[in-house]
């Protein structure tokens, strides 16, 4: 498997640990973890991860604002939202903002695996498809 470095963002310590562990068990590398949107933006800049998992309900800067911030830094960023029922509008807003996939809480490792693989296969950096001009700029 091509090595893939992931940034895990969630305001719950336990969730960060569980998702990180599940991703490591699947053979992915954890580039870093963040407990807030503000910190996630800093870490994204600093670590340039290949993929981000993002809790939709973060205190302060919420998940959608954080997705927008990350897409400003890198329009080809791959972001998966961690969400649930009751947050449909936020999920749709985050997808409009550039998120590529979603996983419902509680996170099931097999669903996480499927979603990460799908997002990597469909959207991985491929000059000419999704970066910069002619991509998702509207």
């Amino acid at each position, binding site marked *: 498997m091509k090595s893939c470095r992931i940034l895990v963002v969630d*305001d*719950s*310590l*336990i*969730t960060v640990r*569980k998702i990180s562990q599940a991703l490591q068990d699947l053979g992915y590398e954890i580039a870093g973890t963040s*407990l807030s949107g503000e910190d996630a933006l800093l870490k994204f800049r600093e670590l340039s991860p290949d993929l981000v998992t993002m809790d939709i309900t973060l*205190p302060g800067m919420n998940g959608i604002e954080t997705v927008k911030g990350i897409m400003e830094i890198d329009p080809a960023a791959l972001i998966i939202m961690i*969400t*649930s*029922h*009751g*947050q*449909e509008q936020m*999920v*749709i807003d985050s*997808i*409009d903002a550039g998120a*590529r*996939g*979603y996983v*419902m*809480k*509680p996170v099931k490792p097999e669903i996480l695996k499927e979603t990460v693989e799908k997002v990597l296969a469909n959207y991985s950096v491929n*000059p*000419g*498809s*999704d*970066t*910069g*001009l*002619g*991509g*998702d*700029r*509207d």
Partner: protein
Amino acid sequence: MIEGDLFKSLFDVIPFDIYVVDISNYEIIYMNRKMIEERGNFIGGRCYERIYGEESPCRFCKIPQVVDVETKRSLDKTVIFDLFNPVNDRWYQVQEKAMTWPDGRITKYSIAVDISELKETQNRLAEAHAELALKNKTLLKLSSTDSLTGLYNRMRIEEFLESAIYSARRYSRPFSLIMLDIDRFKEVNDGYGHLVGDEVLVRLAEILRTQLRKSDYAGRWGGEEFLIVTEDTDKESCALLAEKLRENVEATDFGSVKRVTISAGVAGFESGDDRVRLIRRVDEAMYRAKSAGRNRVEL
């Protein structure tokens, strides 16, 4: 207000998790029988550590919503919210309110109803919405992208042009256009085959992507012709940008074809312009560049 022993006797028989926390130090001072049986006895521990697995008070903590933080008095307000507990991976609907414990301490009580099964069913509905949003997005992208170059297709770039004309008229925001065409592209196709021709188009699109700014929109206008809409840019600055593109293309190694050049026309929006007039002007400028010997930019 329900107090002390009465609280205990009432809540020990209720089949939901109930616990009470001292708001001054987050100490758990009561748990009902059901919660102790299922989760263990955490009395004396901190709620954020024992119940939620955190190292410091939870970021979602509702104490500030049920107690006046200044006076430490109950706001007599009940809050209800859905909460995911990552310790046991269960969803709860939680009801919380402040109350005075018999010894006078101000506390917060929480009644947590496990809604995990309900959430599981509802999540399928949420998934359907999310999947639909993703599909829509893909559809929009497919319908607005040129499949070979990944740039916008003609339909989409025309839409950008229309919206730029609208902003220029309404808000007096200047914008300009570049029309560029690969010189002697027919010779590439005839001499090297269409696959090589396609590679040249893809390579050129990459140059546009890396050289253009965020406020520039590039689309494939037709065969080997590209149209670029540059927002908030007058025609002189736009001509400099076009010249930079021309130089960049000229300096690029196009593989088996080696060297490729482009001719570009530039036109700025002028009052009274519509799409047809503007395109005609930029097209004429491009043809002037061709007739003046190619590999050049004309205003």
